[in-house]
């Protein structure tokens, strides 16, 4: 298989530091060597390629933008480039790393006690421990504030009851960060695997993110020590701040998927002969390719600026919504267009575009659906929330 070269029409490499390029190239090589040879089978067999988790940890890809506790402490652009390269391999792989870093390690790092940080972060950073993030419920997706999972204060412990759904890494997680209402306020709780009253069910029969484990979490009179609450997070702002981190990674990741689809389509268009010439010589095909490259380049520029805003402390959740909404939307359009351009070959696993297209149906839905991000921007523009 050819090694991935990336798409960089506006020579954005010149805007990256030597370290950022080295980090990007290292992850790109890792994906070429260890993900591409196995990802089709993982996807078809509905299995997360868990054999790569120790390497993810060893390289420092887990919680890579966090400081201390054995984390790599990278800047936001380097972190984004990691997400881009991982998702160029598969959205399920990027999802694993996003959840581990953005949704589990980040909140422990930001809201946890020193004891919790010391106990969990080095293990999670090394990939010796896997985390999941339980916010969404069967009946509360876009409206997490309505959640019914509850925590009750009972002496020296809390008792959790409720169900979570669509939880990435759920069944394989050693620790679940679960959001539940305590006296009507949303709070975060760390639940270790094996705690009595905590169980998981794998959600099967998916046509998307098949190389990622999706689960339900069940809590039935699950008793956890009082020390397991994230004391620094109180209210919906806690989980939403985590989602901002993960959505930032998705904005970068989606462009990775789009690049994989575009580069596949570009090669196919110049080598596939119909009517005695490459199909890339036809105007309709050229228009598809021109649209793809234009949107990828715009998405890359959005990501770079978003990283600058993040590192300078000026990034808002709304900035992230714009990039997540735009980049995932166009990644999915590019994947569909590339699928179309590849004709019948586009529906096989001979090429990665069908897999990316199916994965992106999840990516455009999770971490705030496309429409919810539209409303967040509408709220930002008009000052009037449409979802309340």
């Amino acid at each position, binding site marked *: 298989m050819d*090694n991935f*070269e990336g798409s960089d029409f506006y020579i954005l490499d010149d805007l990256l530091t030597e370290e950022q390029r*080295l980090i990007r*190239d*290292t992850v790109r090589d*890792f994906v070429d060597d260890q993900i591409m040879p196995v990802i089709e089978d993982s996807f078809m067999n509905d299995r997360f390629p868990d054999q790569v988790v120790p*390497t993810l940890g060893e390289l420092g890809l887990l919680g890579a933008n966090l400081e201390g506790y054995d984390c*790599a402490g990278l800047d936001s652009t*380097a972190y984004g480039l*990691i997400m881009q390269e991982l998702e160029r391999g598969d959205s399920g792989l990027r999802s694993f790393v996003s959840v581990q870093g953005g949704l589990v390690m980040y909140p422990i790092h930001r809201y946890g006690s020193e004891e919790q940080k010391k106990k969990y972060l080095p293990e999670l950073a090394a990939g010796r421990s896997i985390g999941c993030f339980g916010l969404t419920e069967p009946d509360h997706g876009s409206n997490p504030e309505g959640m019914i999972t509850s925590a009750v204060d009972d002496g020296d412990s809390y008792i959790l009851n409720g169900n979570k759904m669509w939880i990435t890494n759920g069944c394989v997680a050693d620790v679940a960060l679960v959001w539940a209402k305590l006296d009507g306020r949303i709070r975060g709780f760390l639940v270790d695997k094996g705690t009595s009253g905590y169980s998981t069910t794998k959600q099967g029969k998916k046509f998307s993110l098949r190389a990622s484990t999706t689960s339900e979490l069940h809590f039935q009179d699950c008793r956890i020590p009082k020390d397991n609450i994230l004391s620094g997070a109180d209210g919906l702002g806690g989980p939403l701040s985590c989602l901002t981190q993960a959505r930032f990674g998705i904005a970068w990741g989606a462009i990775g998927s789009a690049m994989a689809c575009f580069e596949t389509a570009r090669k196919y268009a110049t080598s596939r002969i119909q009517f005695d010439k490459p199909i890339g010589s036809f105007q309709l095909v050229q228009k598809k390719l021109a649209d793809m490259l234009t949107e990828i380049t715009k998405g890359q520029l959005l990501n770079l600026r978003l990283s600058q805003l993040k590192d300078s402390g000026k990034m808002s959740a709304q900035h992230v919504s714009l990039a997540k909404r735009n980049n995932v939307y166009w990644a999915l359009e590019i994947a569909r267009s590339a699928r179309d351009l590849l004709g019948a070959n586009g529906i096989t696993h001979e090429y990665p575009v069908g897999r990316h297209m199916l994965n992106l149906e999840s990516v455009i839905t999770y971490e705030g659906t496309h429409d919810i991000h539209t409303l967040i921007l509408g709220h930002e523009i008009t000052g009037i929330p449409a979802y309340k």
Partner: protein
Amino acid sequence: MKIAVCMKRVPDTATRLTFAADGKSVDTSEVQWVISPYDEYAIEEGLRIRERAGEGTVTAITVGPEGASKELRQALGMGVDDGILAVCDEPLDPIQTARSLVAILADRADDIVLFGKQAVDSQGAQVGALVARLLGRPFVNDIAAIEVSEQQVRIERDIEGGRETIEGPLPIIVGAEKSLNEPRYPKLKDIMQAKKKPIEKVTPQTGEPSFETVAVTTPAPRPEGRIVGEGPEAVDELIRLLREEAKVI
């Protein structure tokens, strides 16, 4: 244990190369550069020798433009202790590269100097041997395994139909074959810390070139293929053509 690894940056094998307008060189304006793969085996082995010895230093040395510091940083990210860049923007012929390296290596008193067995762009397989000749040290190319103990070295090489084991004293210069090891990925934290590791820049002592590249050209287009038939019936005819016309069997 003092170890030096000589490395070269080469165009990424995925890069589509085009020739420059002068017809004598490759257009490198949009090339993505990587460490020549055989040199990565050399770097990895240098690190392993240091790790097994439990002491020592590994220095990565390259001759190339300022931009080659990126590849040196990658080596530093893998665990190399320091780097030396002989800054040169002009393309060099092998003897010039060898002289530049010798000027650096002559006074270092390395126990082992590692090269890749050849660079994957020019495929010359000359520089390691030239450096060894100029320094008057023994050279073993295509090494598949190496073991260092005190002042002695034991080397294995894959040869036609078997494996050869040789022994000799240090210091030595070797060229790495790909069966030597599996190079590690640089860890992200180490890439960041590599910023703090020193890269010394020196002026190369190239001397005059022996040869001048006068032209580079694309290969002639392949002749069109021919379909001799379909199914099992075509096999006899195909074999006849391969034997009598193409003369390859």
